[in-house]
């Protein structure tokens, strides 16, 4: 592990490999989408109500929400700090800031900037603590608790309803039939993947996760990168908060209940190496889509919420264990 060079790490990222032999490389890139398409195809044929336009739009929107938050959180995972347990709390915070600013008469852009500014501060604070060596999961658990309590107290546990809603077009609208949330998700996924494979900072992030000590020795600012990863995760969570306010025109304290769990499950099911150091961002998006689709199929089949969570957890645990065992066999 100690002699890991930047090139090794770059070679490990699927998307960083040069596209040799045209067709096959294409196939390899498309490979992650095949299970999704297969699952969707089978479900459309066998499950009543899955193939309808409103249901598909609902699935795409829900996976976009989990997916955007998962892409951001993946930055934390890739830089070797596991996950954050404060995702839903940060999304709720952004939703309240945005909704409060808009109902106070601010233009939507100002409201968005305020929510993002808060996210930078909150993510930066958590990142700073974790970069100093504090346990990421325990730190974010504590941070999320303080944050959620503060937001609920400041908002007096009220629901803020926006009418008119200045960003209804973004949260609920479609472009050429595709929900705008899904377009945001796809754009972020592409940008994030390019960032990890093509930019210096992105490659440094992967190296930090692979071997922080080695990264330190070759002059990578590992602490700054961890802070950056937490800021990215906070911004993604804030974006999710704003998008959902756009969709439902209100902010309330329990609007994101379960988001953190969905995001962690998406990251695990997608198969991002949980120890960090592998920059395959698409896996986070893949996990989010697969889990949301499975959840939707089970809902349509009349399987209740408990069983869905049970399967989600077991699936995440199963993928985690298989990846751990595979890695132990071929290090």
């Amino acid at each position, binding site marked *: 592990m100690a002699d890991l060079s930047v090139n090794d790490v770059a070679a490990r990222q699927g998307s960083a490999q040069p596209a040799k032999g045209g067709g096959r490389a294409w196939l390899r890139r498309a490979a992650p989408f095949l299970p999704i398409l297969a699952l969707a195809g089978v479900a459309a044929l066998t499950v009543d109500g899955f193939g309808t336009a409103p249901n598909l739009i609902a699935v795409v929107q829900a996976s976009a929400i989990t997916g955007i938050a998962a892409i951001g959180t993946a930055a934390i995972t890739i830089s070797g700090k596991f996950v954050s347990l404060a995702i839903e709390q940060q999304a709720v915070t952004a939703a309240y800031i945005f909704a409060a600013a808009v109902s106070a008469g601010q233009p939507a852009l100002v409201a968005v900037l305020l929510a993002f500014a808060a996210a930078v501060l909150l993510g930066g604070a958590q990142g700073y603590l974790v970069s100093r060596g504090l346990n990421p999961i325990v730190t974010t658990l504590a941070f*999320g608790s303080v944050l959620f309590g503060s937001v609920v107290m400041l908002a007096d546990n009220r629901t803020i309803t926006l009418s008119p809603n200045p960003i209804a077009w973004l949260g609920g609208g479609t472009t050429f039939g595709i929900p705008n949330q899904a377009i945001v998700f796809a754009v972020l996924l592409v940008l994030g993947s390019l960032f990890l494979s093509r930019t210096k900072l992105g490659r440094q992030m992967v190296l930090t996760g692979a071997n922080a000590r080695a990264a330190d020795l070759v002059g990578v600012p590992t602490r700054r990168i961890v802070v950056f990863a937490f800021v990215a995760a906070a911004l993604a969570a804030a974006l999710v908060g704003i998008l959902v306010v756009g969709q439902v025109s209100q902010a309330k304290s329990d609007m994101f209940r379960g988001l953190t769990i969905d995001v962690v499950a998406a990251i695990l099911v997608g198969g991002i190496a949980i120890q960090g150091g592998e920059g395959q961002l698409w896996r986070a998006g893949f996990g989010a889509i697969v889990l949301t689709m499975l959840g939707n199929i089970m809902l349509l089949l009349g399987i209740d919420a408990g069983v869905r969570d049970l399967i989600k957890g077991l699936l995440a645990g199963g993928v985690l264990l298989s990846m751990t065992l595979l890695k132990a066999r071929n290090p």
Partner: protein
Amino acid sequence: MTRLLDLDAGFKVRLAVCAVLLVVLSATVPGFATISNAASITENIGLIALVGTGIMLTMVVGQLDLAVASVAAVAAIMALSLAETSLTLGIVVALLTAGLYGAVIGYVIDRTGVNSLVLTVCMLIALRGLALVLAPKRPAILPGDLFHISDALVIPWGPVTLLGIIGFAIVLAVGWLMRNSKLGLSMYAVGGNVERARGSGVSTTRVYMAAFAGSAMLGATAGILAALRSGSASGIGFDGFLLAGITVAVVGGVPLEGGRGTIVNVLLGALIIRLISSAVALGGIPGSFESIVTGAILLAMLLLDYQLRRKGRTRHAHA
């Protein structure tokens, strides 16, 4: 006995903090220094110290169990659902199931080397689902003819209740075993240095299995007691256990990297937290403030611990 008490500097600091809090809060918060409030405080200490001790077991061996809240929910629902037939049977089945589950998790962690934080997050999700499966539409409730048990648990005997006494007794027994049994000492050895412990012939499999089984069973005990007290158990009613348990262990001076931790400090940690929460509740501040306080205490302790460790390290480097 001296080993159990382990009167180190950390103990004295915690004792002093408790004393200051007691004096200040008694003098400033109306209704704080009453016998009934003392009974409520000790009762809740018993409850969160059970969870905290479970988490301490996994922290001492250098791991962390994040699934305690879900385990508590599943166990409580099992016990209450079976209470129609026999409450004793329900409690025994729930505790054995929790122990078996924990042993399997410990075994898997030992054999695969999987990160325990992440594996137990998966279990947190799955078991929360299981709790909802076991009590799908409404919470499991205690049969009406068993309500006298709820009452018996919370009747104050001076400054304590039966529930608090049960909690304290179990926690102290676990603490004594950790310092006076071979398995308990092996736990500290494994948490301190896995390779060295293995080299000296300690079976890590047994240690991890014991730690996670213990954590699950203590979480289950707390869940069952809380459910008996309130007469009902729902899938999401125990979510606060995780943060409370970790905070108790961390305020109790158990380091996240393992190898150390004493039960008396954990009890004092629970006391500190309950003193503050109780004062907050009496002050008429809204419920969301408790999550702020608990989270803030945990963050502050993590930072303090980090500062102390860094100081310790530089002193070490200079020596």
